[in-house]
Every structure is written in C-alpha cells, then in structure tokens.
C-alpha cells in the first residue's frame, strides 16, 4: 500500500493545499483592514435563510440598511441628525445567522478578528445569543443583541461587552397575563399552543405562572406544543376546541403564527375564544381579513402599531414603507433601536475627544444609558446597565371599517412588567410579581 514515492507526493500535495488555503485566507475579500478612524464598522447578524428570515431577519436587515444609509447622510430626525456615528461613516458587514451556535461562534470570531468590526449587532435566536455572549467577553468585542428574548443571558451571568437593547421574553408573557386579566377579570380557563422549543416553553411557562400568581383559580385546560415549523395544526386546533378555553395563548411567530391564524379562523377557533398572539402584530396588516376581531396582539415591546407618536417613529414608518412597500414590523424597530443605541453610546463616549473612542469607553457610556428610539425612551437599566427596559403594550385587533388597527390599547410601565435588577424573572414571577408599580 505504501509506495516508495507516496510520502514525497503527500507532502507536496499538502504543501500546495496549505499554500492555497493561506492564499485564500490572506487575500480573501475584507481581510483584516487596518483600523480606520473615518469608518465605524458594524457586523450585522440576522437570519437571511430559513423560516426566521421572512418575519424577522429580512425586516431587521432592511431596517439596518435604511437606518445606516440615512445616518451616513445625516438625514435622521433629531437627536440623530449628525452624520454617521460621531462623524465616522458606518459600514455594515452582513452575516446570515443560520447554522446554529457552533457555526455562529465561528462567524462571530471572523467578524471580530478578520473583518475587524468595531461592534456586532445581531442575533435573533436565544441559543445563538447564549453561545455568543461568553465569546464576546473573551474577545472583548462590543456586542449588541437586538432581538433574542431569553432572560437567561444577564440573569445567569454578567457581561461587560454584551448589551441588549431589546426586551426579554418574560415581559411579553407577564404583560400578556396582566392584559388579559384586565380585559377579562373573571377569567376561568386558559389554554396554550406554543412551539416545542425554548422560546415556546419559556413563553408559556412565564405566562402560565403569571396567570396563576395573579388569579390562582384560573384553570389551564390544555397545553399544546407542536414542533416548530410544523405548519399543520389541525389536531391541535381540534384539541383546543374540545377543551374549549376562554383564552388561547400562543407565542407562535412568523409562518407558524400566520398558519395558526389561517387554520384557526377557518375553523372558528377564535369565535367565542380570545386568542393572545404575543408576536401577532407582524401579521395584522397582511392577514387583516383573516385575523379574528378582538385577538390580543403583542409586538414584543412598544413597537409597530404600539410605537408612540414621535419624530423618529414617523420617520421610520414613512421611510420604511416608502422603500420596502410594507410598514415596519417589530424586528425593524428593534434593529433601529440597537443602531441608535450604539450611536448614542459612541457619541457620548466621543464627546470632547479626538478620534474613535475605545471599546472600553463606549461600554462605559453605554451602561445605564438612556436614549431615544422610534419606540420612545429606552433605558439600559437591568443586568448592571446592559439590558434595556421599556414599557410593554398590548391591544386587541380590530378591522372595523376595513381598516386594520388596535383597540383597548393598554400600556404597562417598564417597572410593572420587568423584574428589578438582581432577581431572575422566574423567581420574580413565582414570588408574586412584586415590587412593581402598576396602575
């Protein structure tokens, strides 16, 4: 088997192979650029393929494109009317979030080291956020999570280099429980249909626990956990109808949520039963004719239709709709929020200084920062100043007069739906949602 000349050939082959590889690595596009003080590079990581691309990835990517372009032109409304970030032009390096935690850790390292980005904004999947956070810490790279929801990130650990400008998933569930009890004070039965993965489990557990704390006599009649992306919910809908709850909670998102609405509406699931769709806002325009009247819709924060009226929001709605032919949904808001948060922090750090502020300086400025966004004021006050809190809003869908909108909108102040710093969400719920100010 081992021929006399094969050893030499192998070495030769390997030599060629490795030189090829090094060539590829070394001369690849975007290989290590020298630090440039006139540019601020941001890695943007979001889903561009798979089931999360349509509902989350692409709207957020679109928002990033729009916001970055407008900022570079200096055409954003105040207080963001200065060009770029602290005068530097913003450049984006877009990466697909597909592939799971291991893959994303590799891509993250690429971004930070090979592409030399100044900050990374991204991550929709909570699993990816959990995987990335320690790596960000290890590589000492400023990282902003814009969408992922798990409260575990800052509850299990404290991070210096990681920020999250989006809200946790706990808030959705706690506020949903408060809202439905505000609307139906003598609620007796609830049921849940949530996707069989961490997001679905957490959303349902938090919602169920909150309901139990707020009104212990509510009975859970069934909890369904179909597989994510299952698409067909016929049997689950039958099971829900058989148990006949007053309220059906679902944290389905994207295609799954839309499928549930379509199939549920066609079969009258929501007739006489109120649905709570914690991410339902993304579908309220395009499925306006199928969305049952009175369905409780969430937007994972004061985003989309729940965003307050201000210049930034007006700008985002007008410009986004103009460019992409559809109103911005909450992922677009959250991405905008992350970029604006970064801009605020960098500019605060750069104030009265020459050149690009260091990562350490940006972090110092970012901690406990308060900044304005289309969703109103954002306060980085949890997780030692790294986790944003905002008010949470719910309302009910209405299509009266053929114009989709929301009614009975109720806004819950941030303190009412967020745990105080230093206590985990689960504990906070179990201990009775105390230390809160709710009106």
């Amino acid at each position, binding site marked *: 088997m081992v021929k006399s*000349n094969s050893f030499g050939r192998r070495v030769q082959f390997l030599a060629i192979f490795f030189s090829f590889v090094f060539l590829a690595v070394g001369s*690849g596009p975007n290989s290590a650029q020298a630090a440039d003080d006139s540019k601020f590079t941001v890695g943007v990581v979001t889903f561009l393929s798979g089931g999360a691309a349509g509902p989350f990835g692409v709207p957020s990517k679109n928002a990033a494109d729009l916001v970055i372009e407008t900022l570079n032109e200096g055409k954003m409304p105040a207080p963001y009317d200065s060009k770029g970030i602290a005068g530097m032009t913003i450049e984006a390096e877009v990466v*697909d979030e597909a592939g799971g*935690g*291991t893959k994303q850790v*590799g891509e993250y390292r690429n971004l930070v080291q090979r592409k030399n980005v100044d900050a990374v904004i991204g991550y929709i999947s909570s699993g990816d956020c*959990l995987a990335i956070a320690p790596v960000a810490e290890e590589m000492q790279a400023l990282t902003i999570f814009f969408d992922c929801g798990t409260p575990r990130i800052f509850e299990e650990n404290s991070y210096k280099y990681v920020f999250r400008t989006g809200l946790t998933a706990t808030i959705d569930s706690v506020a949903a429980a408060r809202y439905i009890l505000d609307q139906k004070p003598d609620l007796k039965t609830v049921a849940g249909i949530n996707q*069989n993965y961490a997001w679905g*489990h957490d959303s349902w557990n938090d919602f169920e626990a909150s309901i139990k704390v707020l009104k212990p006599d509510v009975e859970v009649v069934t909890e369904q956990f179909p597989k994510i992306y299952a698409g067909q919910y016929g049997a689950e809908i039958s099971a829900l109808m058989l148990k006949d709850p007053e309220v059906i909670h679902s944290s389905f998102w994207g295609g799954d949520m839309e499928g549930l609405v379509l199939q549920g509406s066609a079969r009258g699931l929501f007739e006489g039963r109120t649905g709570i769709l914690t991410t339902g806002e993304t579908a309220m325009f395009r499925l306006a004719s199928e969305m049952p009247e009175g369905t409780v819709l969430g937007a994972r924060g004061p985003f989309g239709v729940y965003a307050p009226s201000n210049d930034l929001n007006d700008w985002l709605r007008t410009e986004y709709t103009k460019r992409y032919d559809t109103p911005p949904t909450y992922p677009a808001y959250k991405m905008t929020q992350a970029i604006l948060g970064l801009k605020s922090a960098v500019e605060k750090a750069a104030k009265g200084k020459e050149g690009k502020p260091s990562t350490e300086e940006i972090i110092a400025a970012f901690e406990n920062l308060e900044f304005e966004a289309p969703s109103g004021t954002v306060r980085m006050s949890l997780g030692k100043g790294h986790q944003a809190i905002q008010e949470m809003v719910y309302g009910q869908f209405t299509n009266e007069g053929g114009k989709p909108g929301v009614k009975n909108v109720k806004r819950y102040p941030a303190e009412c739906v967020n745990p105080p710093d230093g206590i985990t969400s689960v504990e906070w719920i179990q201990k009775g949602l105390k230390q809160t100010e709710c009106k």
Partner: protein
Amino acid sequence: MEYFRRTNSFFAAAFVLLLAVGLMAPNWFSYLTTISLAKALVVIGLVILLRAGLVSFGQGLYYCLGGYSVGIAGHYLQWTDGFLVLLIAMVVSGIVAAILGLLLCRYREIFFAMLTMAFSMILYGILVKSVGLGSTDGFNIHSVSFFGWEPGTDKLGLIVYFLACLAALIVAVLMHRYFHSPVGFAGEAIRENEIRVEYLGVSPNRIIFSKYILAAVLAGAGGGLTALASGHVDPEMAYWTTSGEFVFVALLSGTAHVAAVFIAAFLFEIIRTYAFDLAPYNWQMILGATLLLIIFFLPKGLWSIFTIRRAGGGVK
C-alpha cells in the same frame, strides 16, 4: 513498525506544522481549525462505516451526546478537567452505541441510514423537551481545566486547539493502522460481499457492531471537543442537518485515507465560511453546487486527485 513509518512521520510533521500554525494564526483561524479537527474525528467514524458500506445519517446523535456529556460534566457536576470530560464523552457515546448497535448492526443501506437518523432525532426531541438543560437554547460551558490548571478565557482557545491537534494526531495514527488492519479490511470485505465474509468464518454483524461503536466513540470525542471550543452546546448538534453535514464532508474526503478526512473537514469549513461571506443570501446554493461538483468530478473524494496522479505516474 516499518509498515506505518512513513505515514506516521507524515502525521507527526503535520502535527508540528499545525502547532506552529496555532501559535501564529489569528484566533478566528485557530477556532475554525479546531472545529474542523473536531468534526474530522466524527467524519473518520463515518468513514469507518462507509468503508463497510454503511452510511449513518445519525452521527449527530453521538456528536451531540459528546457535547452534552462535556457540558453536563462541567456545568452541573463541576468536573472540568478537559481530558476527563473528553473521556466521559467517549464512554457515554460508546455505551449508547453499544445498546443501539445491537439493533442497528442488522440493518444495511437506506434502512441503516434512516434508523440512525431516527435515533438521532429522538435524542433531539428529548433535549428539546429538557427545560433543565436549556431546551433548544442549550447552555454554556464555563470552566475548563487541565490537571488542575485553569487557563484563562484568553488562552483557553489555544489550549483547546492544541488538545484538538493532539486528539487528531492520536486518532490519525490509530485509525490509519486500523484501516490497514484485518478488521479494517473486514469492513471493505463486508461492503463488497457479506456472504463471502460469512463463509470466511466471520460475522459481518459483529464487525459492524464494533465499527458502529468505534464511530460513535470518535463522534463523541468530536462533539466533546466542539463543546470545549465553542463553549456552548445545543440540541442542533443532534439535528439531522448536522449529520448530513458530516456525510457531506465524508463524501468530500472519500474513504481512501485518514488524512483526506482532515483536509476535507478543513476545506468544508473554509468553503462554508467564504460562502457565508461572499453570498450571505445564497450560500446554500454554493454549498449545493460544490456538493454536486464533487460527486460528479471526484466520486471517490479528495484523495482521488492524489491517487489518480500516482497511478498515472506508475504507468510511465
């Protein structure tokens, strides 16, 4: 022994080269290499099965078990020694494979492939249901030590890289010997003609059983290393697409030589990283096209570039 001397010195040279590269290369590159070495271990297991004519679409099962063993040992039991947890990963994978192998060793072809996949997906389902283990989000592995010494986070990457190189060297040497051993050839014999093997007094099922366990142990080691390197485990490791990726790499490498597997694994990571980079929207298309081109032009894998040349040289 004389028989393996050349290949062994080749492996040793590659090992030294890798160590040197690790010291010089940037962090992202050594991470990529660590992951490709870890995945190469899994793929070598797959190649062992392929040489016996079997394709497992479920090596993710052991890759994931290995990862979770390391994670659970470190995170929940506070056993942090890198060598110890890797050993645990291999033992756990081996034990599970010994149980499932009893059933699987009777299956061939597509049925083997589908059944291995089913088992892998069952583990995926169990992990998704395990809220204590973080469900689909998985959990992080915080501390790793080596004989009581805890490298800081800044050094850990490099240490794991060295560990992966060492593991790769050991596996390469042992598996190269294995490929040329009677049991190694028995695999090829089974692929070619099971009836003859039976009539040579050897049980194909028993050989396949042993190979299945070996492949699982290697996959467990690969999963464990991946977990150490990425610091995170999640059930995605057991999802069928992960297993499909291993088959992809195995096909890229071909079954001719252990070294080909390492090259293929590395090449795969490079291709994928650059595909992500060059075409964030259409990287799947690049991967798919690469796959088709390999099957079409290199049906016997990468090593055939090399062997064809050798054969051609022989004629002249």
